[in-house]
């Protein structure tokens, strides 16, 4: 039992932190926010060529680094801290989906494309309000030369900038997974205008879009969606922990400088105790994050049950979602008046925390999922 990072993982963390400190400051984030794509394109190119983080989860035989979810989590936690506007988690989500079909030549090609820096986005739901199979609105109908797709998908992480899309669609009593090109006919892809501008999301309209048999990855994918979403929650959890940590750090820095009644407001117990509560939530969420990442890595090797993965992901989503929102919200309060201005970054974290806690299911929905495991099944123990 050693629940701490290896030397290699510590080196990765340090290199990510150093790189982002240099390349992903507040002005870079704000420039990307107001751009069309919402992405810092130059930074993303630099990451794809110099750092190769997009290839972490891609197996080595397809040109990737063949590392684990824990390494991705290390990178994404730092990106959450810096609000780095690059589509890393979107690509990782697609890599996770493609790894369920790794024996298929098309999946192998797409994994290789991901490792080369192509952006493949994962389009699975219209989220009204379901994020799971119930929320899939695209319908695939079998046609002579393949399939015809109709319907809509929204909340596609970085989907507006995608080079290619992985589209989940309803077929008879199951789900299918298809590759769709944004440029093909019957496809409209646009950016969703969102309250949080640090995390661009796309929406996809499909109207009689024809997909060839070669672009059909699976017609039996329903069982995989749940595990891909559970693993995706771990990615979101990593960004949430980073977001919570940054909210705490920026707030502690601010109250250490702000002087009222002749002393820094950091010296008041009312402020200190709020900061202590923030740290407690950050560290607790971080413990569940590393646990969930370990379970996720074992799930990728099929050494744990899908029940364990769903449980770990739900615990993390509840804890990290609450932690990020609590820390960013409390952070605004600790900033006082300047906290609600556009000038200070704490409001960016607040909006980011809100969008992330809702993405893939709110914390209370995750808790209901756990409650069902604990209270409604036959056995008393979820663990």
């Amino acid at each position: 039992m050693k629940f701490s990072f290896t030397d290699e993982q510590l080196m990765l963390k340090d290199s990510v932190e150093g790189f982002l400190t240099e390349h992903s400051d507040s002005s870079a984030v704000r420039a990307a926010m107001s751009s069309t794509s919402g992405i810092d394109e130059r930074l993303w190119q630099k990451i794809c060529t110099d750092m190769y983080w997009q290839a972490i989860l891609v197996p080595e035989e397809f040109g990737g680094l063949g590392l684990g979810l824990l390494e991705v989590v290390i990178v994404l936690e730092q990106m959450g801290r810096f609000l780095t506007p690059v589509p890393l988690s979107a690509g990782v989500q697609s890599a996770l989906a493609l790894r369920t079909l790794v024996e298929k030549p098309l999946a192998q090609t797409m994994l290789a494309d991901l490792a080369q820096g192509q952006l493949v986005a994962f389009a699975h739901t219209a989220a009204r309000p379901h994020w799971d199979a119930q929320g899939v609105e695209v319908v695939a109908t079998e046609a002579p030369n393949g399939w015809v797709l109709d319907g809509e998908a929204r909340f596609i992480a970085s989907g507006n900038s995608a080079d290619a899309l992985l589209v989940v669609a309803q077929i008879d009593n199951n789900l299918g997974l298809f590759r769709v090109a944004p440029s093909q006919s019957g496809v409209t892809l646009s950016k969703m205008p969102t309250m949080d501008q640090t995390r661009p999301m796309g929406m996809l309209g499909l109207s009689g879009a024809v997909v060839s048999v070669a672009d059909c990855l699976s017609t039996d994918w329903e069982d995989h969606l749940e595990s891909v979403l559970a693993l995706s929650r771990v990615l979101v959890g990593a960004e949430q922990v980073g977001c919570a940590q940054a909210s705490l750090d920026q707030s502690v820095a601010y109250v250490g400088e702000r002087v009222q009644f002749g002393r820094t407001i950091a010296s008041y117990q009312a402020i200190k105790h709020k900061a202590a509560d923030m740290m407690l939530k950050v560290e607790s969420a971080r413990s569940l994050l590393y646990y969930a990442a370990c379970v996720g890595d074992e799930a990728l090797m099929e050494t744990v049950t899908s029940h364990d993965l769903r449980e770990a992901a739900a615990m993390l989503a509840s804890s990290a979602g609450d932690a990020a929102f609590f820390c960013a919200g409390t952070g605004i309060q600790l900033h006082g008046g300047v906290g609600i201005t556009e000038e200070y970054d704490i409001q960016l974290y607040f909006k980011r925390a809100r969008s992330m806690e809702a993405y893939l299911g709110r914390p209370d929905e995750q808790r209901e999922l756990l409650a069902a495991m604990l209270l409604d099944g036959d056995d008393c123990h979820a663990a």
Partner: protein
Amino acid sequence: MQLRFTEADEKFRGQVSDWLSDNLSGDFAVIRHRGGPGDEHVYVEERKAWEGRLAEGGWTCIGWPEAWGGKDATIEQQVIFNEEYARAGGPGRVGHIGETLTGPTLLAFGSELQKQRYLPGIRAGKELWCQGYSEPGAGSDLSAVRTRAVLDENTQTWRITGQKVWTSLAHESDFVFVLARTDLAEKGHKGLGFFLVPMNQPGVTIRPITQLTGTAEFNEVFFDDAVCGSDDIVGEPGQGWKIAMGLLGFERGVSTLGQQMLFQTELDEIIRIARENGAGKNPAIRQRIAEAHIGLRTLRYNSLRMLSGGDDGSLNREAMIYKLCWSSWHRNLGKLAMDVLGPEAEILEAAPYSLGRLQSLFLFTRADTIYGGTNQIQRNIIAERALGMPREPRGES
């Protein structure tokens, strides 16, 4: 990161659990799951005998060096022992103050003579210890100690006068370690000494404190010219604070997983009731049960991080939040138990004041957020030591 224990550790786990299931039976079956926090006053004679049995089996003081009868057990092995002990329903340890506080303190700071005099009795489970830290005027502000110790040159003895409070198992203990002021001109952390004092003497008087549960596991201990030898001071006069603070660092969280095992049995009981009485269909209760489940698992992974961290024994960030985390969680669990029980929660097991297990849990967990550093003190510690925020201004003491 490696969440699983090694094969060798799992083999050790098997030895512990086999021994416990063989021995925690017969005359000792009655003390299974008894004598924990809030229940420390029960079956004391049986639990004393149990210490002897543990000692014979070589299961006391396993973290101590082999030279002093220990097993030099690794942190992992100590964690496993505590976990299996709790899983088997091992009773609250009457010897735990000696094993986890006095022993490590003497090993680190004691003289050779002190080690030879006191360690074997603790290792054998024959000499029990209690602690004399808090005073009526020294709670969160532990350094406001007023108990004083004066060296009598003629008899070569220390004479101790003052009052300690919140001392559990005082009646049953053979010795108490006492933080007392050796230099009356000094205040706060300075001028303190750390003394090893026999309990069975005319100068020591014990008075039980009846708690809100109707039971009394804590005591007040009065020292009126109580005596210990001139060589029963650990370190030098004036070093008492350093030694007292060192002692608080020895525990290193090896018992936290065992504690969580007890918490799990409480949560399981609450979940069982919620499934039976229909409370588990109430959406608000469902949220709280899920939160309790998440909270307990969070404690586990906080602990594992704490146990895997800093090999130098320094207190890392996870360790600083641990007390605040578990005490708040446990107190909430007590309230959840009452809400799941519904109207039944109010009805006693028996008159005049015999509480059920969950009623005790509810009432006694109000102490969790107070003893060992209140939640407010814990937040100060986190803010000041982990986050580097300014220290509280001190008043005149």
